[in-house]
């Protein structure tokens, strides 16, 4: 068993998953790879089974959040030092994993999160998406007094304490885990480090956020953030991560 675990939630990613896994293996970093097959209807499971990696397969589709949480639960049972969550659709660049590992190991950060917007050039988006992202940043800035350039990023590294806490069923925010985990950690004043990542254009499949969806997404995420805030302020869930 290696020190770290790369968690790749995958639902119907037969076109891209093989290359993603092989590219990560080429890096020669001391990590295990775990694919969570979230009830795929295509050949994703068959493809990943041939790859000599760890595979956990949901009987039916539970959604991105639950797939991620399954990875956390597994990692917690094996006590990995850190985990890295990575998209299976090929949009993330495996080379950024090296940076993520060095950051989570050197810095005493609880979360290291990749930002698609810290480099000016690369990531082109629709005007609506850019607008939604700006509002989201503003909301987070007001709520937590911190600027996070890419709150919805799916590329993160979590320390053992962090993922262990979120692996427990009451603690995990299942609907928008990427944003909600960041918000929760910011409110509790844990150290979060952002670093720039490059993003490839999706080769296959449809983005989670296309068309008018950014607006609906923005609305739901805002609601979700408010709930996380209220939980801290009113229910006083409070500090959670103990050594």
């Amino acid at each position, binding site marked *: 068993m290696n020190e770290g675990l790369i968690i790749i939630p995958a639902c119907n990613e037969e076109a891209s998953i093989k290359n993603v896994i092989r590219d990560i293996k080429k890096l020669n970093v001391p990590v295990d790879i775990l694919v969570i097959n979230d009830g795929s209807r295509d050949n994703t499971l068959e493809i990943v089974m041939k790859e000599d990696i760890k595979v956990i397969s949901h009987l039916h589709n539970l959604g991105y959040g*639950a797939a991620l949480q399954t990875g956390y639960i597994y990692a917690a049972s094996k006590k990995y030092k850190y985990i890295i969550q990575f998209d299976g659709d090929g949009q993330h660049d495996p080379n950024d994993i090296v940076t993520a590992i060095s950051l989570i190991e050197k810095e005493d950060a609880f979360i290291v999160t990749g930002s698609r917007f810290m480099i000016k050039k690369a990531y082109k988006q629709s005007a609506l998406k850019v607008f939604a992202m700006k509002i989201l940043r503003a909301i987070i800035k007001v709520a937590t007094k911190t600027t996070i350039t890419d709150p919805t990023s799916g590329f993160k590294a979590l320390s053992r304490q962090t993922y262990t806490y979120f692996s427990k*069923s009451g603690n995990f925010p299942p609907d928008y885990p990427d944003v909600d985990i960041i918000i929760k950690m910011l409110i509790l004043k844990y150290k979060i480090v952002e670093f720039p990542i490059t993003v490839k254009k999706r080769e296959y499949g449809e983005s989670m956020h296309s068309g008018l969806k950014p607006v609906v997404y923005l609305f739901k995420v805002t609601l979700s953030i408010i709930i996380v805030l209220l939980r801290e302020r009113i229910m006083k869930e409070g500090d959670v991560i103990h050594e």
Partner: protein
Amino acid sequence: MLYMNDYFRILISIFVFIFILFVVYLILKRKLSEKDSLPWIFGLVFLIIISLNPNIFDSIANAIGVDYPPALIFAAAILILLFIIFINTMNISKLKNEIIELTQYIAIIEEKHCEIEAKLNEHSNEEHQRQDKKPKESL
């Protein structure tokens, strides 16, 4: 002497009564739990009482200050339905979470099961090889 209105009322009472029998039948067949059937039984008994004694409702409506008593019936019916639907939504949320947890649990157990099986196979293969070697050595 019965008016048209009374026939309708009796018809509704009969319909509701049959509904109650149906609910009881489902409970006996274990297709509906006793606990979940309670709001329905209470609601249905309530409906029978009202349809047989509409005067109760008239006097309640008068007391509250509702000019048109049937409006009160609608309001009551909607509130009861809202209550039942809300309880249902709550239960569905809970069930969803439980199903997610179960599915995750099964998936992780399955992975560990495969891991253990692989190790056992390795182990037994080694044993076989050892046993295969021994007789040769003794020869």
